[in-house]
Every structure is written in C-alpha cells, then in structure tokens.
C-alpha cells in the first residue's frame, strides 16, 4: 500500500475493530495478583533495617519497571510512526503512554509511604525522585498534547517527538543514584546481590505487572478504536 505523506494511513482501507480476549488477560492478571500479594506480605522475609514497610518495594519497583517498559513501547512506536506514518503505531503509543502514566503515578504515590516509614519524610528533591517527577510531567504533557492538536498526522508526529525525547529521562532515573548519590536506595539492577526469596517475589511482581500492563494496553486500544469509530460515524 502506498503511504500518503499528508495523513495517517491504515494497513487496510477499513480496519475492523476486534475485541481482545479481555477475560483471558484479566483472569491471568487476577491470578497473578492473588499469588503476588500473599508472597509480598508474608513469604518475603522482613528487612532487618527497614521493617515491614520495605514490603511496599514489591509493588513500587515492578510499577516503576513496567512504567519504563510502557514508555519504551512509546519510544519504539514513535520512531516507527515517524518512519511510516502508519496509524497503528500512533494507536499503540497513545495507549501505552496513558497506561505508563498510571504505573508512574503508582510509583510516585507508593514511594512516599515507604519514605515516611524509612526516612521520616514523605518527599525530598533527591536526584532520582526529581527525575521520576520530571518523567511523569513529560508524559502528562504527552497526554495533554493529544487533546490540543486536532489534525491526526500533526498530533501523531508532535507526540512522537515528545515520546522519543521523554524516554531519554529513563536512563537518567536508573543511573541517578550512581551519578549523584542522594537519599534513594540504588537500583537493584545496578546494585545486584538480592536475597533469593526477595528476588523470587520481585520477579513475581514483574510478571504480575507485565500482565496488568498487557491487559490495560489492550483494553485502552480497544476503547480508543471504538471512540474513533463513533466520532467518524458522527462526522460522516
């Protein structure tokens, strides 16, 4: 199919809206959460220094990592959009950005609860916390930008550029403690050496939040497709 340089293009002339198997994905996600929560609250050993509050780690860190994954998907799809102008890349990026914002909000809301227990304060402008706050602001701007540009191709291209630039903040977040120290503990990716049981629960957390991400992404894409079809029907 020839690519029209002035508008977003579809794979087919009139792509059918297919409802994803949400019952399957939601069921798998629910089962994973039913396994994760008792593991995080009872199976994982209590941290000697931080006490039980450290158990927040098992939802805080997977929310952060899967948030990064969501913005990674935005990054890849944004490059593909700029290269091809295909609508599907914009659809995936838009849905993934919104879901990524929810995961990052979870990080920003659960982190201070741990901080209050561990540091005695809810928030500090530590380099890593500041970089996460900036990431959240960038992708909130991305979502706002989608509301303010009407022409689909311009909207898709502007958002693609913001999606690519915003992703550059993620390596800064991962390396922030190594580069600038600060209050936040080192990333377990950088530090390594986690106890075996903690690692099992953390991996279970990553699996669970990956399933949640897939479920939310598929649902959001389906809802967006229904919304666009309805708008096109009204406009016709």
């Amino acid at each position, binding site marked *: 199919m020839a690519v029209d340089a002035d508008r977003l293009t579809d794979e087919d002339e009139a792509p059918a809206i297919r409802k994803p198997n949400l019952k399957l994905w939601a069921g798998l996600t629910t089962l994973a959460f039913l396994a994760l929560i008792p593991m995080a609250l009872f199976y994982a050993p209590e941290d000697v220094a931080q006490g039980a509050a450290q158990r927040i780690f098992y939802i805080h860190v997977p929310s952060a990592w899967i948030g990064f994954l969501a913005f990674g998907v935005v990054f890849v799809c944004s490059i593909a959009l700029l290269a091809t102008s295909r609508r599907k890349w914009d659809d995936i990026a838009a849905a993934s950005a919104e879901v990524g914002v929810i995961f990052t*909000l979870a990080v920003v809301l659960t982190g201070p609860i741990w901080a209050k*227990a561990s540091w005695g304060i809810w928030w500090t402008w530590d380099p890593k916390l500041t970089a996460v706050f900036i990431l959240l602001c960038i992708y909130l701007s991305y979502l706002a930008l989608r509301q303010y540009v009407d022409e689909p191709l311009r909207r898709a291209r502007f958002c693609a550029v913001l999606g690519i630039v915003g992703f550059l903040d993620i390596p800064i977040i991962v390396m922030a403690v190594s580069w600038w120290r600060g209050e936040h503990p080192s990333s377990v990716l950088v530090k390594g050496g986690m106890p075996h049981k903690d690692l099992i629960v953390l991996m279970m957390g990553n699996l669970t939040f990956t399933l949640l991400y897939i479920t939310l992404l598929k649902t959001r894409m389906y*809802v967006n497709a229904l919304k666009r079809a309805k708008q096109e029907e*009204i406009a016709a």
Partner: protein
Amino acid sequence: MNETPMTVTYEVWGYLVGAALYGTYIARLLIQMHRLERGDDVGPR
C-alpha cells in the same frame, strides 16, 4: 487489660493506595468500554 489500638501499617497503606489507583483506572476504562459498546457516549479524544 490494655487494648492495642488498631493501626494500619505503612506497607498496608502502600498496597491500599496502589489498589485504589489501579482499581479506579480499570473501573473508568470498563465504564467507557461498556458505554461505547452500547453506542451512547463519545468522550474527549
């Protein structure tokens, strides 16, 4: 007899806040989906 007051510990607050956030988003998505499938709502883009 001294009774220990009921307190919700930090980790429980963490899980409750997470559940409230994700739960609210999921509920909003499902309501939007249901209304669009019925054909009676077009919200903002």
